[in-house]
C-alpha cells in the first residue's frame, strides 16, 4: 500500500485500521540466490538495491534480533559528507545525495533535516586546519565553508561565545547540506521497500555457522532455524563482524568498541544545527522531539557490551556543558551504546573476503549511519556482479597489506 496524504484521509474513514503490515515476515526458504547476515541499515539497503538496481529478488536478510536494533537504532542520526580524502568524499557524498531523495525513493518519510553541520574552531591551529580541510573538500565538490565567530553565533546562539569561555569559539566550518535523518525510519523504509520487491526479512534468527563446499567456499549459513543455502553470502554486522568472520574461518583488522550516546529531556527548539567540538570530541543536535542528542568519545577498550561507561559519560557531559552552559539544568533521560567496528584508518571495507562466496560490509566504525545508502548500493553491486563498485574499489581488505590507507581519523574530527 502506497503511503500518501490520500491514504491517510481514506484511513481516517476506517479509524486508521486499514493499514497492512509494512513488511512480510515469511518462514525462511531452504535456498536463496543471496543471503545477507545483518538486518541493520546497510544490510537492508543492500537487499533493496539488489532487487531494485540488479533485479536480484531471491534474497533473504537474516537478523539475530530485530530490524535496525543494532547500531542503526543507536547512533546520533547525523548525516554529512565533509570528509578529507577524494575516495571518502565520493563515497559519503554519494550517500548524502541518495539520502536527499530517499523519502521519495522508498515512499517512507525518513525525516531528513538538512540543518547543517558546524565544526567549531577553538584555537588558531584549529582555524588553520579547517581552512585546509575546507579547501580540499571544495575541490572535491563538497559544500563545506569556513564560518566566522559571528556566523557561528547566528547558527547556534546557545553556544558560550564569550572570550572567557573554557573553550573559546574562534570560528569554524560548516556543511549546509548535512543534518539529521530519523534512524529507525531509514531501516524501516528500506525494509518495507525491499520486502515489497520480494526480499524475505527473517528476524530473531541467529547465524551460528557457515555451510561450505569441498573447496572451502561458502554455500550458505547455519541458523537457529536450520540451514539456508545461498549462492552468495554477505556480512553486514558492524561491531559483530569479527564474530561472524571467526565462524567463517578468517580474521579482520577490526576492534569492537562501545560508542555511547545519550538524550536529555525534550525542550523547546534551542539548537537548529549539528554542532561538533573537536576540542572535547562532543557533538550535539536537537531531535525533532526536542531532546538534546549528545555523543562523544569511544570507551577506549574492546567491548561487546551495549552500554557505555560512566567515566566517558561524565567527560562527554562536562564537554557539552563547557560549550552550552544553559543545558546544565537539563536531565539526561536515556544513555546507551552501540558496538562499533573500528579499523586502523577509520574507513570501511566493502567487497570480497578471503573466503570464496563470502562478501563483507564493515569497518564504518563510529560513522556508519550516514553511509547506509552508499554501503548498501556498493555491497549490492559486488553481490550481483561479482565485481567491486567503482566507489568501493579503494575500500578493500588488501589495503591492510599494501598500506594504501584512506586515513580519515583527522577528517572525522573526533578522537576515534
Amino acid at each position, binding site marked *: 500500500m502506497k503511503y500518501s496524504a490520500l491514504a491517510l484521509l481514506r484511513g481516517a474513514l476506517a479509524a486508521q485500521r486499514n493499514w497492512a503490515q509494512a513488511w512480510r515476515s515469511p518462514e525462511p526458504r531452504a535456498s536463496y540466490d543471496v543471503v545477507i547476515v545483518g538486518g541493520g541499515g546497510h544490510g537492508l539497503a543492500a537487499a533493496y538495491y539488489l532487487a531494485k538496481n540488479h533485479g536480484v529478488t531471491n534474497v533473504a536478510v537474516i537478523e539475530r534480533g530485530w530490524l535496525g536494533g543494532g547500531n542503526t537504532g543507536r547512533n546520533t542520526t547525523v548525516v554529512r559528507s565533509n570528509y578529507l580524502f577524494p575516495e571518502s568524499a565520493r563515497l559519503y557524498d554519494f550517500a548524502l545525495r541518495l539520502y536527499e531523495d530517499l523519502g521519495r525513493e522508498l515512499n517512507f518519510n525518513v525525516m531528513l533535516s538538512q540543518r547543517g553541520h558546524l565544526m567549531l574552531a577553538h584555537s588558531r591551529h584549529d582555524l588553520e586546519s579547517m581552512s585546509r580541510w575546507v579547501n580540499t573538500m571544495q575541490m572535491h565538490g563538497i559544500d563545506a565553508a569556513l564560518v566566522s565567530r559571528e556566523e557561528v553565533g547566528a547558527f547556534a546562539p546557545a553556544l558560550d561565545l564569550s572570550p572567557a569561555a573554557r573553550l573559546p569559539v574562534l570560528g569554524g566550518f560548516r556543511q549546509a547540506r548535512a543534518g539529521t535523518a530519523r534512524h529507525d525510519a531509514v531501516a524501516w523504509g528500506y525494509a518495507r521497500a525491499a520486502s515489497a520487491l520480494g526480499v524475505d526479512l527473517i528476524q530473531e534468527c541467529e547465524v551460528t555457522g557457515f555451510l561450505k563446499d569441498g573447496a572451502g567456499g561458502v554455500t550458505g549459513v547455519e541458523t537457529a532455524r536450520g540451514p539456508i543455502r545461498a549462492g552468495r553470502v554477505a556480512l553486514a554486522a558492524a561491531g*559483530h563482524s*569479527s*564474530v561472524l568472520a*571467526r565462524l567463517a574461518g578468517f*580474521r*579482520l*583488522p*577490526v*576492534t*569492537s568498541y562501545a560508542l555511547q550516546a545519550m538524550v536529555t529531556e525534550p525542550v523547546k527548539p534551542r539548537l537548529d544545527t549539528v554542532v561538533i567540538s573537536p576540542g572535547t570530541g562532543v557533538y550535539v543536535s536537537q531531535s525533532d522531539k526536542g531532546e538534546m542528542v549528545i555523543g562523544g568519545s569511544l570507551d*577506549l*577498550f*574492546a*567491548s*561487546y*557490551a551495549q552500554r557505555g*561507561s*560512566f*567515566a566517558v559519560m561524565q567527560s562527554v557531559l562536562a564537554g557539552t556543558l563547557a560549550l552550552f552552559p544553559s543545558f546544565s539544568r537539563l536531565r539526561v533521560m536515556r544513555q546507551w551504546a552501540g558496538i562499533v567496528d573500528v*579499523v*586502523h584508518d577509520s574507513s570501511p571495507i566493502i567487497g570480497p573476503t578471503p573466503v570464496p562466496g563470502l562478501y563483507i560490509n564493515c569497518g564504518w566504525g563510529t560513522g556508519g549511519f550516514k553511509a547506509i545508502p552508499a554501503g548498501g548500493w556498493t555491497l549490492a553491486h559486488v553481490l550481483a556482479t561479482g565485481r567491486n563498485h567503482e566507489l568501493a574499489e579503494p575500500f578493500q581488505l588488501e589495503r*591492510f*597489506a*599494501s*598500506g594504501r590507507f584512506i586515513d580519515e581519523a583527522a577528517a572525522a574530527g573526533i578522537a576515534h
Partner: protein
Amino acid sequence: MMLITCPDCGPRDEAEFVCGGATHIVRPPLTASDAEWGEYLFYRDNPRGLLRERWRHAYGCGQWFNVARHTVTHAIVAVYRMTETPGGAGA
C-alpha cells in the same frame, strides 16, 4: 565501571588506567611478507568473550601489565605481569 587490580598498587578505579589493546602478539621476523606484516600490525582476534590485553596504570605507578577480561560482562578474570605468560584462573 571497572575496578582494576594493579599488580603494584592494588584495586583502583578504571579512570586511572589506559588500555593498550591485545597482548601476547608476536612480532614476525624481518623476512615477513607484506601480508604477514599487515596481519601483525592490524589484524586482531577481537573475541566476543575472554580477551587478553595490556593495560597501563597511567595515573598511578605507570606500569604496564596484562589483564584477561570478558568483553561482554567486562569481568576481569586474571591480572598478571608483562613478563608472565597466561596461567591460573585465566588460562
